[in-house]
């Protein structure tokens, strides 16, 4: 049975696109047939993060307007044959698509794919309404900052009002050292405010910046963020994976990783 998942946050710049790319790629790594849809019409960048910008011919608006068939617009990933991207249009805006059209599109894609991941734009306007229209499930991305949490709370309220069946939380850009010093909200503090199920936490990691710039999602790699995203993918598939302990010193993780490399 296929599932349509929207990745959303309300606030911009908290890691929706990065999370979409990594969750999509991770699920493909776990042998799921996945399509990533960039719904941020006019400000597309999921293709850049995936390193597939040079392959774009048709886009989401072309599909909706009937200029091409869905198959023509889907870009096959260069690393995983069971991963596809439906890019957004850069020259149009959010009003080019309606929620009804998005629902029809996701319903058609359900027949082909196990997971349909929608990268939602920031805000609560048309773009957001389009992105959530066909979704069964939402991943809320937030950072441990009051402004991001406030927006996430608003988004959760809107999703609940739209009777979203399942809403899970990703706490992104966590700095364990700052939490320890009491300068940053902990995962528990965030979950306490938002009162929804936590599906994973991703530490603030330089490797993310590098991977984004290179167009190579780091999910499943040796980095802390790579492991955290892989754990989230396992949890999406319904597996029970304990939460990573970030408070462990980085050195120890590196040591363990090195140990495996030698073997």
């Amino acid at each position, binding site marked *: 049975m296929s599932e349509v998942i929207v990745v959303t946050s309300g606030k911009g710049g908290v890691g929706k696109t990065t999370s979409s790319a990594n969750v999509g790629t991770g699920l493909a790594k776990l042998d799921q047939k996945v399509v990533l849809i960039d719904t941020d019409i006019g400000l597309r960048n999921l293709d850049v993060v995936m390193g597939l910008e040079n392959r774009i011919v048709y886009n989401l608006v072309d599909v909706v307007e009937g200029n091409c068939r869905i198959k023509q617009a889907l870009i096959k990933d260069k690393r995983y044959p069971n991963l596809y991207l439906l890019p957004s249009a850069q020259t149009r805006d959010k009003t080019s698509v309606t929620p009804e059209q998005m629902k029809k599109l996701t319903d058609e894609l359900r027949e082909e794919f196990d997971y349909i991941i929608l990268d939602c734009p920031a805000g609560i306007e048309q773009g957001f309404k389009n992105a959530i229209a066909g979704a069964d499930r939402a991943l809320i991305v937030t950072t441990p900052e009051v402004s991001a949490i*406030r*927006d996430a*709370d*608003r988004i*959760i*309220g*809107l999703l*609940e009002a739209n009777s979203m069946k399942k809403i899970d939380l990703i706490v992104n850009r966590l700095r364990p050292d700052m939490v320890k010093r009491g300068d940053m909200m902990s995962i528990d503090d965030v979950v306490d*405010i938002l*009162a929804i199920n936590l599906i994973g936490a991703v530490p603030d990691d330089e490797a993310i910046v590098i991977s984004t710039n290179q167009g190579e999602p780091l999910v499943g790699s040796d980095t802390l963020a790579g492991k955290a995203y892989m754990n989230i993918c396992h949890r999406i598939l319904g597996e029970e994976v304990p939460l990573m302990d970030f408070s462990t010193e980085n050195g120890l993780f590196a040591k363990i990783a090195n140990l495996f490399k030698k073997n």
Partner: protein
Amino acid sequence: MSNNSVVIKSNKYGIVVRLDETTPYEELLEEIAKKFKESEKFFKDAKMVLSFEGRKLTQEEEQDILDVISQNSKIHIVCIIDEDEKREERFKKTLEDKLSDINSRDGQFYKGTLRSGQVLEAETSLVVLGDVNPGAKVISKGNVIILGALKGNVYAGASGNTSSFVVALEMNPVQIRIGDVIARSSDETKKNFDNEPKISYVEDGNIYIEPITKSVLNDINL
């Protein structure tokens, strides 16, 4: 045959019954029964204030007429008032006072977390089973009781009743308003909150927030 010994006039808040002075009392009662029966569908179960015109009535007679009205229609007569020029205004005030009185003693439950942007509004008192997050708002004409954390805005006694109160298990509101008195949270960021259940109420035009104790509860008037 048209009989004008009884005339019913109504405004938004009440009914004026004009009674002919010369008609015998028994006949009048029959006519009242008939008139109210006819207009039963029009008034339905409206809550109204009643007033008489044109004839002096004793208390027993008023009671008789009330009985006749309740037997022949579904109107709830909230109270009876004397004839007056500014009748409609007084009707309105009396009805609203009566209703807000009833409302602050009546309550509704809401289960769930109120999130940023959500507004919960009620004519009666409210019991929220969940948190009120920053950016969310609870408005009630009566009292507000939050079995959770109050971190947003709350407005109790929204019809102007400053004897309303607000209770929360974790009292940390952005803004609190009771009747026409407003208080906001302090500008200093507190790091450690004592998560003790607290009550807010108005005294001498100021909002006070205090832990719930027996003596505070004794001072509450419902």
